[in-house]
């Protein structure tokens, strides 16, 4: 059984005259696989990630999405998270006054509780965070600051990957994790992501640029345009896109 199975997904902006953004998208993701989704701006990549996470601004009008065979679209946002769906945000949100450490712990324990697991002990939690933070170059000071408050672009993205590492999701959706990163930060973040690759974890890496895929090498590459996947292939497809751009797909669609 696929970990994630999206069939003919149609979705529009919620509301009476909301425009249709996803127009029949299908995608199967198995455990252990890394799928890259590329495509021009406005093609619906972020919308797809939000719909997987359950954001309420969209309405699914047709199609199905299952996670390990269960209807994902029926689940609450936090229930999806507890089942292992993690979204690394393109624009991480600030939560002033809540230390990153406090936030991580509240999130981890909320998920564990929903899964019927015991709360993590304080020493275990501290050990876990210290280890993961170390690899990502995140110091104690950053962990004490409010979630994403006053973080630079690179710090925000590293903090997202730290959350992902601590929460150990089954399905990681990374939305433009490379945007706003210089080459050194890109390396640190990519190494953090690669460290999380495992046979029971799948990833969907959304990016506009091929550059990220030199560091996080995908098993599959999909090209998205106007709310559909218009072409799929192996990692070499990314190189082709870099050479030729998206023009050919945009014409196809027009």
């Amino acid at each position: 059984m696929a970990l994630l199975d999206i069939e003919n997904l149609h979705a529009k902006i919620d509301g009476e005259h909301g425009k249709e953004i996803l127009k029949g998208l299908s995608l199967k993701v198995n455990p252990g696989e890394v799928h890259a989704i590329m495509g021009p701006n406005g093609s619906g990549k972020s919308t797809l990630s939000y719909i997987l996470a359950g954001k309420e601004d969209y309405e699914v009008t047709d199609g199905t999405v299952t996670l390990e065979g269960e209807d994902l679209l029926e689940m609450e946002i936090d229930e999806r998270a507890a089942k292992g769906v993690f979204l690394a945000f393109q624009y991480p949100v600030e939560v002033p006054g809540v230390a990153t450490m406090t936030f991580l712990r509240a999130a981890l324990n909320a998920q564990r509780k929903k899964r019927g697991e015991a709360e993590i002990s304080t020493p275990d939690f501290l050990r876990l965070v210290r280890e993961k933070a170390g690899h990502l170059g995140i110091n104690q000071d950053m962990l004490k600051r409010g979630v994403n408050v006053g973080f630079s672009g690179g710090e925000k993205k590293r903090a997202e990957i730290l959350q992902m590492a601590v929460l150990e999701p089954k399905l990681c959706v990374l939305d433009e994790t490379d945007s706003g990163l210089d080459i050194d930060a890109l390396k640190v973040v990519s190494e953090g992501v690669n460290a999380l690759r495992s046979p029971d974890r799948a990833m969907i890496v959304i990016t506009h640029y091929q550059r990220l895929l030199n560091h996080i090498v995908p098993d599959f590459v999909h090209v998205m345009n106007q709310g559909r996947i218009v072409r799929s292939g192996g990692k070499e497809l990314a190189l082709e896109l870099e050479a030729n751009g998206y023009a050919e797909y945009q014409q196809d669609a027009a």
Partner: protein
Amino acid sequence: MPAVQETVDQVRSLDVDQYKYGFFTEIETDKAPKGLTEDTVRFISAKKNEPEWMLEWRLEAFRRWQTMREPDWARVSYPPIDYQDLYYYSAPKRPSQLSIDDIDPEILATYEKLGIPLRERDALLGIESGATKVAVDAVFDSVSVATTFKEELARAGVIFMPISEAVREHPELVRKYLGSVVPVTDNYFATLNSAVFSDGSFVYVPKGVRCPMELSTYFRINERNTGQFERTLIIADEGAYVSYLEGCTAPMRDENQLHAAVVELVALDDAEIKYSTVQNWYPGDKDGKGGIYNFVTKRGDCRGDRSKISWTQVETGSAITWKYPSCILRGDDSQGEFYSIAISNGRQQVDSGTKMIHLGKNTSSRIISKGIAAGYSDNTYRGLVSAHRKATGARNFTNCDSLLIGDKCGAHTVPYIESKNSSAQFEHEATTSKISDDQLFYCRQRGLDPEEATALIVNGFVKDVLQQLPMEFAVEAQKLIAVSLEGSVG
């Protein structure tokens, strides 16, 4: 941080009955006849075995009160209160304050349910398990039922006892200070309190003494249709220090109950008083039925040079809150602080804030107020900062933030500034924000349910004030915040 987890647990466990202190204790009581006349005042005074001067003081207040009108300037509305339809005195039948074993077991059980140890032995067990030592005075309806650690405090020279006892045992101190900060004629509710106050706590910390433990009073309204009018008087003599905590709860009732307290603080030269409140009176049900009317006058007088008074309050309960803990900065170089979290949900109405009256030279004050409005509630911050002609070098910093949850509630900020001295420096900052859908979505994507997410965001918003509270109180306050916001999202 474990407190967040506790917050979460608390919310979970209170699914049905969100006000967990809403039980009623069956005990026999001794009441004054309903209504308020000179005879009621005499009745109360006689019950307390008061000396003649105290009765005269009360009667003068009562006569004055009859000529006064209830204030209507606050941004709160409620049906007229029938002052003749209330009881002004209600006491448990068994004698109180003799020994812990004389206390009605039902009352002991009530305080146990509330988590307040009245037996010193129990409190000591608390210490062994790591908690700080806190001396408690428990006021049940109109009387104080137990004061713990009295002897240990006495060894340090600290007087901590029900005010009714202090009137008899330390008349010179009471006469000197009672009404010296909040005059009998101050305002309608304070004058009413002066006439009929039944009990409350009295604290005197002598020169140079640092009070060896936190002092705490726990107020409980139990009887139906009974007003609670407690009176607290705290004096820190030269160079003394005391930290005092106040907590309150009441049963759930359909009718409104009146609470009109007066708290007076006096700090002499180099003395410091830290006064913290977690107010959790019953707020009424979701449609606004029942709940406590909390009309309270709290004022501190920094009477001595270099003295300091600090108010910290967490206001989550009451149907109506009308409360402005204030500081009179009389001594040169004296300091006043006000840290406040005021949460309103359902149909609650809060009009609260502070006054910092700068009279002395180089006096400074600091105000940090966090108002949180949810449901259909209204939340107003009302503040006054003033500098007298002689208050050269006066400084104030005010930061006043409001957070709205949902779009049916209101937050208002009414700051007044008066300066008669050109060297005074007053700074004022204010913000109003909403919990954004993006914040909620982000937290929920990480696994928090809507209520957990809201509690976490709100705890972040009030962090600066929580940090001012003694540790145990901060944890308690965090739990309360989560509970009082229940049902505010979704």
